[in-house]
């Protein structure tokens, strides 16, 4: 379970998130939608503490994962990130072979057992629906894959370290429709084993893949509801306007 309590976030003097509180359940897909710059990616990146890489940022409020505040001093951020995988907007494989890309998380975790790594790489690639396409060229550079394949490779890479939560920051926005639908199918399957939070620009995508949807605007969480209800009968007028395209 992921929870945010009265979260405010600042880039320098600019307040990017305003008093956000919400709960995301296990084994569900939660989608964040909203216009560009509304803070949805910033919010997502709070949960694996990625925003810390940016200088001059400040957070108030609490972010809890399974009841534990992930910003308290005793938390080891690398351990946290091993439990919370992330897939980025643009496919960003490492300049290494396909195999090494997937094995990366295990290797930095200090796993030496070659047999285990091999097995885990295969499982992850199977889970990411990429195994059949790459099983004969694991030694090849990851850059030889197409954009869609690279993104599934990045998903496999995130799965390899067995996280419980996967954060996806517009994972299909740089992909063609066929690759997009493959990623969406994958999200459906992964839901069984993982808690997924996905940021998307594409409202149809949110409607297709998610169980719950949060609508962000100008740093505030306007509405957070079951996806079905959100798209059929939203409670707030802003949501209605955004979904029907009258705004945004």
């Amino acid at each position, binding site marked *: 379970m992921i929870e945010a309590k009265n979260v405010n976030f600042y880039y320098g003097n600019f307040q990017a998130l305003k008093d956000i509180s919400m709960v995301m359940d296990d084994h569900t897909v939660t989608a964040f939608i909203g216009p560009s710059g509304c803070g949805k990616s910033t919010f997502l990146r709070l949960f694996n503490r990625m925003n810390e*890489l940016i200088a001059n940022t400040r957070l108030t409020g609490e972010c809890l994962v399974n009841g534990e505040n992930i910003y308290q001093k005793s938390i080891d951020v690398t351990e946290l990130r091993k439990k919370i995988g*992330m897939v980025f907007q643009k496919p*960003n494989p*490492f*300049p290494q*072979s396909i195999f090494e890309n997937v094995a*990366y*998380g295990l290797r930095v975790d200090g796993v030496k057992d070659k047999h285990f790594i091999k097995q885990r790489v295969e499982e992850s690639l199977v889970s990411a629906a990429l195994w059949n396409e790459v099983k004969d060229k694991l030694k090849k*550079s990851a850059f030889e894959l197409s954009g869609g394949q690279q993104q599934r490779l990045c998903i496999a890479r*995130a799965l390899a370290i067995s996280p419980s939560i996967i954060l996806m920051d517009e994972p299909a926005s740089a992909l063609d429709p066929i690759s997009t639908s493959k990623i969406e199918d994958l999200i459906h399957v992964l839901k069984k084993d993982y808690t997924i939070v996905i940021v998307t620009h594409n409202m149809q995508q949110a409607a297709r893949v998610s169980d719950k949807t949060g609508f962000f605007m100008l740093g505030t969480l306007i509405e957070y509801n079951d996806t079905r209800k959100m798209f059929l009968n939203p409670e707030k007028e802003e949501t209605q306007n955004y979904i029907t395209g009258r705004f945004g």
Partner: protein
Amino acid sequence: MKRILERIVELLLTISGAITTIVILLIVVFLFREGLGLFQSSNVEKGYCLCVNTENTVLQLTPFQIKQIFDEEIDNWEKLGGPDEEIVVFRFSDSFLDSYSEEELGKNLEFLPEKLGEVIRGTPGIIAYLPVQYQPINQRGVRILQDGKIKLSDFLGGSEWIPTATPSPQFGVLPLILGTLWVSLFAILIALPLGLGVAIYLSELAGEQMRKILKPAIELLAGIPSVVYGFFGLVIIVPLIQKGFHLPVGETAFAGSIILAIMALPTIITVAEDAMQTTPQAMREASLALGANHWQTIYKVIIPYSISGISAAVVLGIGRAIGETMAVLMVTGNAAVIPHSLFEPVRTIPATIAAELGEAPSGGPHYQALFMLGCILFLITLVVSISAEIISKNKSQAKGI
């Protein structure tokens, strides 16, 4: 109007590109043309010849053999494949004239060759070093040694660099090549880890403020004239080495290496740091998001990603080290001997060229040998940059870019 202007600019750019290329090519051609002339020069100093007794079966001598004979390091013809006869060295000098009367020699010394011939005929083991105008031509018992050319093997394999030796100048380039490589190698061994360390620090660890101060400061270091570095080395480093290692002289290969390392550092740091900065933020984030810590991200992602830039830094650093002249000239002691340890004086190729070109007669073998040294320097740097090119190409193929 605008189109014409564009055409003119295009033309100008093309011309400047072409001119630059041609000039560079011409320099290389000139270098090799001058340098290769060395292998047309004779073994023996111009205007002189070597004569032996006809009983002697040795037909030709290498420059090094000639030197050994005249230094009396070889004292028997047997060692050179001739008869078992002690070598008698004869250098023509004015005192030779004193033992004859003016009548015997003739007014214009026209009988001198004959007298020289007599001496040679009478001494089976003789080797006589004579001016060409007095050589005893067509005399019984006298053979003028065949005039050998300087060979590539003498040049590359020779272990003595004494361009002013008589009768046969020694152009053995081995001590100079080894001196250059020795000094450069250790300079790079010092500068590389240090430079990459600073580059990593600047790129990944230093705060914004620190970067803003350090980077321009380091870039400034690259602009300091090398003679200033040399001066610094001479005043500070040389005495330190002399005292620290209890050496008779502080001007050693080690001093040169340290100075070169200091000089190569700014180049290595700035180029490598720039390369690391080009690693996309997405790549760092991907690594950190997988639970890698900062160090793992640096050596598993950032360094592999920027490897072509880093190898460029290495090549530029090595290039600077190999080609550097002034500072090395000032601190290495300039002894053209094959170095056996870091703590001996050495002499590098560029230092030799700089020090000797002024006193080498234009067009002579010494002059040509110095050009040949330039060619060797050129080839060394060529090999270094080609290998770096190959390395970075392999790496970037793995990278897919």
